[in-house]
């Protein structure tokens, strides 16, 4: 085993996910305690260019037509060989639709420990995971063997994982990728024609606390008065009360507005992943212990059904004046 920290780069349709850069920063923090290098692992087809701005000591690049788009089987096979052969200290995956499909399978296949939902590393290199919907943090020992980790956002800034200097890129041989059990048939594009919430500077977001579809209207009134748009967390979209194009979070859009006003949102990590980097988060939730107050700059436990109409009214008055 060497002391290097590997980061499995996550990309989709030519775009590197922010979490990849964030993991490079996390890997740097961990490498400082292990004394190794930060090495990005990029799998793809004609995708080498994606590595140019990565803040890594080296990039291991595997090119194969079967890696052009993500499938769990092809990624697992490729990474299993690479990890087995090179035995890094740790391998970071995103806790995401891509990383979670691969990391668990590899842990079982290679008989290596896996620690998930890691948000940051302690000063002595212990992974700190966030569990129970963000209500509990768990600091684990880093096992004395190659360890697989999945990372969630919140602990590091993705911007710091980018570099103006292109890293050294080492091309690796791909294994045989025939007889794959999982194949991509097609992509289905998200519903179009709606506003792109990821580009909006003011977002009023509604969660379970809005109680029913009817009540979304008060959020819309507020959005109109403030000049923003309405977005939602998963339970609201699952109920069919708002379209998927308005979903903020892990399975929805990632937003970074100037103001993110969270109405009746508890702040589960899956949601925070989509809005944690907003400039100013204001949370309105009657549960004093809701984790949303741990990411918000301002909070209030007043009932949203009292506050929102009052706020809308005030904003309208200001506009009139």
């Amino acid at each position, binding site marked *: 085993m060497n002391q290097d920290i590997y980061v499995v780069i996550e990309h989709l349709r030519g775009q590197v996910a922010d979490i990849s850069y964030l993991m490079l920063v996390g890997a740097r923090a961990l490498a400082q305690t292990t004394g190794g290098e930060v090495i990005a692992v990029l799998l793809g087809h004609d995708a080498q260019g994606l590595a140019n701005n990565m803040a890594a000591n080296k990039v291991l690049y595997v090119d194969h037509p079967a890696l052009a788009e993500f499938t769990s089987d092809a990624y697992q096979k490729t990474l299993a060989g690479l990890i087995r052969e090179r035995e890094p200290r740790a391998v970071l995956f995103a806790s995401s639709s891509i990383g979670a499909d691969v990391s668990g399978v590899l842990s079982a296949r290679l008989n290596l420990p896996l620690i998930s939902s890691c948000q940051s590393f302690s000063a002595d290199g212990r992974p700190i995971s966030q569990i129970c919907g963000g209500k509990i943090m768990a600091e684990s020992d880093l096992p004395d063997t190659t360890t697989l980790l999945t990372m969630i956002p919140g602990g590091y800034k993705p911007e710091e994982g980018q570099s103006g200097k292109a890293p050294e890129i080492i091309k690796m041989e791909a294994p045989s990728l025939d007889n794959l059990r999982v194949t991509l048939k097609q992509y289905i594009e998200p519903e179009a024609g709606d506003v792109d919430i990821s580009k909006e500077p003011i977002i009023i977001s509604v969660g379970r606390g809005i*109680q*029913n*579809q*009817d009540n979304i209207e008060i959020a819309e009134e507020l959005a109109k008065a403030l000049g923003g748009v309405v977005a939602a967390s998963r339970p609201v979209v699952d109920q069919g009360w708002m379209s998927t194009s308005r979903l903020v979070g892990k399975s929805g859009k990632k937003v970074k507005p100037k103001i993110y006003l969270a109405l009746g949102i508890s702040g589960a990590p899956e949601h925070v992943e989509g809005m944690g980097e907003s400039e100013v988060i204001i949370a309105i939730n009657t549960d004093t212990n809701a984790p949303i107050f741990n990411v918000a700059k301002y909070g209030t436990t007043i*009932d949203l059904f*009292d506050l929102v109409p009052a706020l809308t009214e005030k904003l309208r008055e200001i506009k009139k004046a």
Partner: protein
Amino acid sequence: MITTEAVERSFYDKVLAATPDGEQLRVCLECGNCSGICPFGYLMTYPPSRLIAMIRANRFNKVLETDTVWMCVSCYACTAVCPSKIPLTFGLMTSVKEELLLAGNVPAELQTALANSQRYGNPQGESPRKRADWAKDVKPDIAIMAQAKKQVDVLWFVGDYPSYHPRVLSTTKALAKVLNALGVDFGILGPDESSDGDSQRLSGERGLFEMLAEKNGKAFGKYQFNKIITTDPHAYNAIKNEYPQLGISYPVQHFTEYLVERLEQLKPMLKREVKAKVTYHDPCYLGRANGIFDQPRALLEAIPGVELVEMAHNHANSLCCGGGGGGMWLDGFQWEKAHARMSEWRIQEAVKSGANILAVACPYETPRFEDAVKSLNIGGQLIVKDIAELLAESIG
């Protein structure tokens, strides 16, 4: 396979069996009064009279394909006007909802409230351990039966919304203040209390109602008390009329009934003037369903400064706030169908009556009517207060 006829037959029997007067269904005169008085009857594919016709014609399976029965808020208006005394609300409408529920034809919002009631013992999905949290900052301390370990005169059945809803908490605390002022020896169940289950029953979830009633029955059995009082007319209705059928029998009063009996003691305490024109909204399950019309009015009239005025619909003709029979958990569904809210109709009546205060006696009503005041944008004109709040204010 069950034949359609068998389904029809069994349903007919079920409705008949649902209540002691069930066989009255056979004597429907087809006068249509029920469908006419139903506040949302105009939106129903099969309002009560047509439902009866469908059942008599063995075409109930058609009804199961529709969802407008969920517009029924169990307000009891149809039952009150039926010349044949058919138990339309408790029998017919509730049985139809039961069938829809078993067939999986249930709006999602209602499912959430029912699932919460099943799991947490309250429709809001709040932590059952926190049911008495509201009492923490109330002085003098309120006896929670499991901890107090003593006999009390009155067991106060607080209810779901009075225990958790941020707006209704003020009613709850006001009533605690009034009871304390009168020196009532009372206690609450706190985490031992579950939803009374009445609205769940009226939204077709009989099994859930029985489960909740059994839980409450068990809790009642653990402690010593002389009578139960309730904040909520729905709880009052359940404990008075439904629980005894499950073998759970206790003397019960709505708090307005209980306080009227102590009016002579209460009157000298009502020192502060509440200078206002007050109109009183008869809650369906206090008024129409249980005949309690005068007691709440007597309490209001005892408050110095109060001038009582009536709305166009009052006493047995009162309009529903829209929260009963599951309506509390169907706001989105009903708005989609109706683009109207019963609570707003009522608020418009209250304004027309010239009142400055709308007094209520049911915990569903304060939040519903306050929302309506806001959405009608008539903020300064009318305020909504529970009778308990007005009494507490007058005590000062």
